[in-house]
Each structure stands twice: as C-alpha cells, then as structure tokens.
C-alpha cells in the first residue's frame, strides 16, 4: 500500500488538509442528510427538504398509494446514510489519530456505501422519470468516486511545498483584502438599508388600459408584498372588483431587471 505521509513536512500538511476536507465534507454531507430525515418538515432554524412528501408522491405516481412503500424506501435510505456517516466519522477519527491504514479502510467502506446509495437513487430516478434528480445523483456518484481516487492517490500529485508568504506580498494582499472587504461590506449594508423594506412594501399599480393595471414587484418582494399591494389596490379602487390576475411569463420578462410582473383585470362594481 502507498504510504500516506511521504514528502516534505509542508507537503504533508497540504495533502493531509485535502484528505481532512474530503473526510469532513462526506461526514457533514451524510450527517445533515440524517438530520434532515430525523427532523422532517420545516422548523425554526432548519427547513430542509420534505423527503417524505417527495417519496410518497413518487410512489403514488407508480400506483403504490400505500404509505408503507415510501416509509420502507426512506428507512432503507436512512440505513445506508447512517452507516456511510459512521464510516466517514470513523475514518476521520483514525486519520486524526494518524492511524492512516485503518482510516483508509473506514473511508473505503464509506465510499462503497455512498456509491451504492447514489446508484440506488439513480435507479429510482429513472423509474420515477425524474431526470433532473438523475443528473444530481449521477454527479454525486462521480464526486464520491473522484474523492476516493484523490484520497488514495494524492501522494502522486505535486503539491507546492512552500506555504510561507513574503512580507511585501503579505502586506499588499492584506491591504487589498481589507479594503475590498470593507467596500463590499459597506455596499451590502447600504443595499440592505435601502432595499429591505421592499420585502413587504406595497407596490403601486399602473393603469395600462381602461380596466387593466400593471404591478411590477422588486426582486425582494414576497407573498406579503403581493398581499399588501392587492389590499392597497382594493382600498384605492372600491368601485372595481378584481376578476383576473395575469402573471407575466418569463418570455415577457427578458430584461434581467424584471422581477414578478402581474396584470390585474377589473370590473366596475354596479
């Protein structure tokens, strides 16, 4: 087996850091997937994905309406993900203890479980006809495979062996980082100061024809802005009743600055 620790001291730092990042990435990836399944639904500080709803709908589309199928599929997924998580945490633990051979074995099991999980997901995606998820799972399968190759073969990659920075370059780079950081931070806070109100603020309607009005929402506007705008419109026009709202589709909003645009059609109340 190839040694994990060949090369100069700084090269070892560089290569070990990449291995740490690989292990941390996969451990966190599966940890958060497990948490997502444990929590279920959107809560304060965790929204996640409603996997139950997604899988239940998938099985429903196959004609398997009984909830047991979705539950079984999710439980099997949870098992694969839990053992993948344990394997990566085990690898991280042994790698931290510099027991690199054992770390590699744990990592290998984690990768095997990860590849098996994404193959299982990909089969499901084809059966359920979800090609976007198929691409997503194919990509993760590929990332897992490459993670394995890089983890075991990194000693063959030439990593620069000098982490130190010259004093002059250090000063200049720090100045650039601090000044650009300050300008960007000011810009973000200023934008927040001027634009946050748009999230819920009322937008005025513009009359287009006798009984049609246009409302152009800013990007930040959400459902509250929509509701407030309609409320204000109704208050301003008590003689009109809304009989139709047309949402301008994307082809009519080609300008990059166009957010949501709605057209309100009204009738005069007799």
């Amino acid at each position, binding site marked *: 087996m190839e040694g994990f620790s060949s090369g100069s001291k700084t090269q070892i730092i560089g290569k070990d850091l990449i291995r740490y990042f690989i292990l941390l990435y996969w451990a966190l990836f599966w940890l958060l997937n497990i948490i997502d399944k444990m929590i279920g639904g959107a809560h304060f500080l965790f929204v996640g994905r409603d996997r139950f709803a997604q899988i239940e709908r998938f099985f429903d589309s196959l004609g398997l309406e009984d909830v047991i199928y979705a539950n079984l599929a999710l439980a099997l997924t949870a098992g694969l993900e839990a053992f993948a998580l344990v394997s990566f945490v085990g690898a991280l633990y042994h790698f931290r203890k510099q027991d690199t051979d*054992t770390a590699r074995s744990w990592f290998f099991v984690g990768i095997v479980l990860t590849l098996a999980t994404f193959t299982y997901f990909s089969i499901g995606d084809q059966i359920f006809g979800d090609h976007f998820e198929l691409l997503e799972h194919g990509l993760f399968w590929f990332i897992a495979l490459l993670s394995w190759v890089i983890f075991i073969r990194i000693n063959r990659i030439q990593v620069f062996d000098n982490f130190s920075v010259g004093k002059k370059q250090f000063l200049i780079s720090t100045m650039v980082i601090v000044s650009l950081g300050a300008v960007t931070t000011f810009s973000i806070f200023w934008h927040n100061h001027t634009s946050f109100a748009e999230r819920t603020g009322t937008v005025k309607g513009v009359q287009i024809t006798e009984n049609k009005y246009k409302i152009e929402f800013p990007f930040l506007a959400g459902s509250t802005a929509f509701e407030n705008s309609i409320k204000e419109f109704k208050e301003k026009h008590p003689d009109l009743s809304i009989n139709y709202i047309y949402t301008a589709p994307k082809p009519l909003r080609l300008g990059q600055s166009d957010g949501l645009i709605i057209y309100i059609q009204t009738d005069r109340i007799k």
Partner: protein
Amino acid sequence: MREKKIIQFLILIHWTSFATTSVLDKIIPDVYPLWVGADFYTLFIKLFASLGLNDPAFATSALAVISFIEITAFVCYLFSLINLLNRKDKISEQWFYRGILFSVLLFSFFSIGDQVFGDRFTLLEHGIFWIILVVSWAVFKYNSQSDERMINFYWSKDVKIGVGVGVVLTIVTSVSILDFAGSTFSKKTDPVNGIEMFENVYKFDFPFLGDKFTMENTIKVFEKEHPELKINYIYTGPKELNTKKKTHMLLYVFTEKIY
C-alpha cells in the same frame, strides 16, 4: 477481496443499472403501474417538429437508433459484469471499454442534438454524463493497474461500536420518518384552512403533500363554510412569491358577497 475489485463492481453495477433502466424506459413509452419514466416519444416529436420535420417518422427513427445504441451499451455492461463475477478480468475490461465507447457515442449524439434543438440545459446534462463515463473508465482501468490492496476490515472493537451507532441512527431516523409520515399523511387529502387576508380575499398555504384532491376538498369546504360568498377567481402564487423553501404552494381566492 481487493478494494479495486469492489470499486470495479460498483462502477459496473452503476452503469449496468443505468443502461437497464434507460432501455426499459424506451420499451415502456408511457406511464404504467410501477413505471413512470420519461416521455421520450413526446420529447422527440416536439423537438423534430420545432425543426419543421412534422412527420413522426423522423422522431421515431431517431428514437429507434438511440435505443439500439443504448441496448448495445447495456449488453456490453452486462457481459462485463458477468465476466467480472466469473473472475475473467481481462474480458470484463474489454466489454466495459466497448460499453463506454457506445455510451460516449450516445451522449455525443445527444449533445449534437441539444445544440441543433437549442436545448442548453440538456446539453449541460449530457456533457456531464459524457465526462462521468470517461472518468469512470479511467478509474476502472487505472485502479486495476495500480492497487492490489485487500479489504482490511475486521470485527474489531471500533467496528462493533460503528455498527452499533449505525443501527441506533437507522432506528432513530426510521422512527422519526414513521412518526412524521403518520402525522402528515392525512395532509394529502385534508382541506387547507384559508386565512382572510383582507375583505373577500383568502390565502391558502398548501402543504408539500397537497395535490389536486387537497385543492378540491379545500374549495368544497370553503364553499360550505362560506355560503354567503361566491368565488370569482383563484390565483396561484407564482414561485417569485414563494422563494422560502418551506412554502409549497400559495393559493389566493378572490370572492364576492352574494346579496
């Protein structure tokens, strides 16, 4: 068993199952019990029609040619897998190489088609699969030449702890899933309660499980609860109003009082 062999098996199982389901998707062109799949027939008919080729012969011929390439790739992967199982590594590698060649050819055709039909998202999708195939072959081949490490995983104390933690995590997660399913499954058909946003306008926040039956039940219950109101118009909140990931669908019902 050698690590490289397991990786080879996993690569082959992935591409064999990928090719199997792709072929099945072509054999089963519509939605049936236990199979939904993608409607390639409709997609091809529409794509060729956009070129001005309205005769279905073009779309069906193209689909048939693609299916033949997919079937050939599937057979290559299957033979490769069988030979690897029978420890005929060299023959397995040859079949895998043939399979990869046919798959790469297929995704190259797809990519040409995507450019002709102007579908950039699908072009990205096919480009990604194309590179995954090429790298899969490189890993399959490269691993077989360079690494002879055996699996080194014994029933030691830390493995026992790991299995224990894995089992506990699986049980806890499964119980959570069952509990969540039990408490939310009824949302699939249960009517949603509306909130009166302002006079005569009601908002309904639909759950993720909600579908057409939820909608129908919601309207039925709303009309029963509000006999004094007549629904004039129903507006579906577009996704721009719905950027919070926890919201599934917003529905606004505009009503007027019946005098």
